């Protein structure tokens, strides 16, 4: 009530040709995404993924703005149409975990730079190594 929009503001009639044009654009983008999947872009499959997801996002935005009428709706409904997609990016933060696990600092090679995780697990402790000795010393202290 207190933030009521003027009467009829949310009652926007979109012309039919806009809907038809939007539909046509969506079909064109669908064709484009199928075509792009067959092409080998420079940069390998990651480029393909980026292209495919960009096209899908454009299609999604078209559906949201035109078909779902967010372009013409009230500010409040606009806010609530954005917020879910915004929060979804937080959920994708889960993937940061999996992408940074490899970057374990150490063990270090002779130059002092961190070995990659894949190499690090190859380092088997051998009887003469320093690591078991430290363990032994700790036992002596006990």
């Amino acid at each position, binding site marked *: *009530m*207190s*933030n009521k929009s003027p009467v009829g503001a949310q009652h926007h009639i979109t012309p039919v040709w806009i809907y038809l044009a939007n539909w046509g654009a969506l079909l064109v983008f669908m064709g484009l995404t199928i075509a792009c999947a067959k092409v080998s872009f420079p940069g390998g499959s990651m480029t393909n993924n980026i292209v495919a997801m960009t096209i899908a996002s454009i299609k999604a935005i078209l559906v949201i703005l035109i078909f779902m009428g967010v372009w013409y709706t009230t500010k*409040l409904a606009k806010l609530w149409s954005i*917020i*879910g997609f915004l*929060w979804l990016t*937080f*959920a994708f*933060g*889960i993937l*940061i*975990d*999996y*992408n*940074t*696990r490899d*970057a*374990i600092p150490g063990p270090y090679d002779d130059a002092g730079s961190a070995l990659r995780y894949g190499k690090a697990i190859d380092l088997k402790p051998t009887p003469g190594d320093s690591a078991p000795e430290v363990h032994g010393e700790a036992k002596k202290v006990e």
Partner: protein
Amino acid sequence: MSSITATGTIPAAEPAEKNYLNVTTTFKSWALTHDHKRIGVMYLVTIAIFFAVGSLMAGLIRAELTSPTGNFLESETYNKVFTAHGVIMIFWVLLAAVPGILGNFVIPLMIGARDVAFPRLNLLSYYFFVGGGLLAIAAVLSGGVDTGWTFYVPYASLYSNSQVGLAVTGAFLAGFSSIFTAVNFIVTVHKMRAPGMTWFRLPLFIWSAYATSLIVVLGTPVVAITLMMMLAERTLHIGFFSPELGGDPVLFQHLFWFYSHPAVYIMILPSFGVQSELLAAFSRKRVFGYHFVAFSSLAIAVLGFLVWGHHMFVSSQSMYQGVVFSLITFLIAVPTAVKIFNWTSTIYKGTVRLHAPMIYAISFMGLFIIGGLTGLYLSTMSTDIHLTNTYFVVAHFHYVMVGGAITGLLGGIHYWWPKMFGKMYPDRLAQITAIIVFLGFNLTFFPQFIVGWLGMPRRYHYYYLEPQFQPYNIMSSMGASILGLGFLITGGYLIWSLKFGAKATSNPWGAHGLEWTIPSPPDLHNFPTTPIVTDDVYDYEALDAAGLSGGVVAPQGVS
């Protein structure tokens, strides 16, 4: 607020007035009601029952732990008992209590609306809640669940031979119940406010309920689908998480805590709101730093989504992400501290009256500070590795959940009880009981900090290798008995007051707010005419000037 037009000051002493409680009396008129006040009362009764069941489980746990070798429970039974305690208390008490009971009852009254935006959805939400709860009770009765309330995979999905399916489906339904309530509150707060009720005239309970609803809407679906994926893995062997099926069990923890950490803010934020109301009403002052307290609720809602990894410091999570989560967890202490400092400043130089709700409010402050500060121990990665899965964690979250959320709930119920039922409870007895609850609570959970720090793991019922833990456990069990006694007395005098309590006036506390301008209990349609709000929130100076103070004496209607 004083400007509710001429009919605003209704003589509440008039007997035989029709109100929402007695306007219709058939069973159907309650079971199919769309009235937010009746739905709030139905939540009150239902949650009281679940709380009793959960407390019974807690009593079994405490009785078992008095002896280092256990007293009477098999290990597997013990697992089932603490799981039942956790599942029922979290999904059917904490998540729904304050929004379901107090939110439903007072939000439309506070903003001057005739009802919530979607009354039928509200009723549906209640039945989802009850239906889910019945499934959980059925799971307990048909053998119990032994996974812990977190349902970690792969144990819950592939190995556990207990009623995981029933309990998870129940939790799923309870989740949707809270989503419906949250959608309702969001739209109600946005669209149903009375003329003149601007955002910064909203009572702080509304702000915190709004922030809570935001978390529910954004977080609950994630855990709902995660539990469904786990259930699909369990029943259809569609692998999502179990290593045997090619999946990643840590992903389950990520998705689970992505909701379940924000969920602790779902539990505590509404009680923060109640706290603001109580301190303003019983200090007769505007809440100090109103804007800061309001926005800190939203800050907690947003930041709460960025800290889930602190439950996973000892999983195989990336240590870099762990560091970031640790840092953000420290940051979330800032908006929480903003609230605490502002509440303290609210009491300062206020006209403090120590009625029962105020005693709960003050004990909330003390208990929540302890709960919050020990959270900082746990958000520090290095100390957390020592304290993971010890009784320190148990004590920490009980200080926040019981000391915070349940104390806030009790304070709120005592504050709005005259409004809900039009009856006064014996205030002196309630004050004493509030102190009993405070003492019993501390005796229960403070020893758990110590015994956890010494290394006693949670979820174990044998500790005969460390018999020095026994005194702490006995102290804790004694405290639990006192706490239980306090809850029983509370329930007793509240029920007693329904029949024998003195009749409450429309504003027994002399408090400020639209809900206190209408009779107790309210009429079916809340307000005779749509109120027009002209004064500021918590404007106690104006209220005192108008002679509506309710006095600094005993509340009206109390002998």
